[in-house]
């Protein structure tokens, strides 16, 4: 069935280090993937997206990597800052099919000073 999951529920990194958050998906029909950041008491906030015809996309301090062979997605955050502390979700979508996003459980990122 459709599912999006994460390898680690929590991740703790030192301020200034790079963070890598991983995600596995199982629906090979999904062709659009999104990373969201959710701070306490707020709704998910879009970080970066990638389509299945790409294997890498870069934004400001963030990079998303997509490996369709093993159905794996990762989010890399460079020079992690205290403001990066949040729960990070990957989500998958198939715009040609159902419109819904399928979310994973999330990874809580904690930044140590």
């Amino acid at each position, binding site marked *: 069935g459709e599912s*999006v999951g994460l390898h680690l529920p929590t991740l703790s990194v030192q301020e200034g280090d790079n963070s890598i958050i991983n995600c596995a998906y199982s629906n090979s029909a999904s062709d659009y993937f999104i990373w969201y950041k959710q701070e306490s008491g707020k*709704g998910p906030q879009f970080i970066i997206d990638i389509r299945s015809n790409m294997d890498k996309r870069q934004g400001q301090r963030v990079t998303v990597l997509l490996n369709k062979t093993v159905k794996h997605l990762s989010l890399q955050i460079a020079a992690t800052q205290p403001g990066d502390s949040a729960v990070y979700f990957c989500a998958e*979508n198939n715009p*040609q099919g159902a419109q819904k996003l399928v*979310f994973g459980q999330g990874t809580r990122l904690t930044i140590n000073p």
Partner: protein
Amino acid sequence: GAGVSQSPRYKVAKRGQDVALRCDPISGHVSLFWYQQALGQGPEFLTYFQNEAQLDKSGLPSDRFFAERPEGSVSTLKIQRTQQEDSAVYLCASSFRASGIYNEQFFGPGTRLTVL
């Protein structure tokens, strides 16, 4: 407004009460989504509107859940005879374009429903 707004932000209901949760999407956004987020979990899809048409309600957990968007703008999620398992954050999201096109979903802050 600049973003998706939801009201109320917090709702406490006694078991068996009916509740109504409101979503104001970004002006001009065609698509509107409702998601349910249990504590410590990722959001789960409930239902989807394209303008005023409810095109997908496959995620609604029971017939106690009902959503509407009569004029293609504001949407209301109604839960009848609330149960404790309905306690969750209810998120609304909107996107500019209709289905079949890659486009970002913008989320509101959510309504936290607690059923006692």
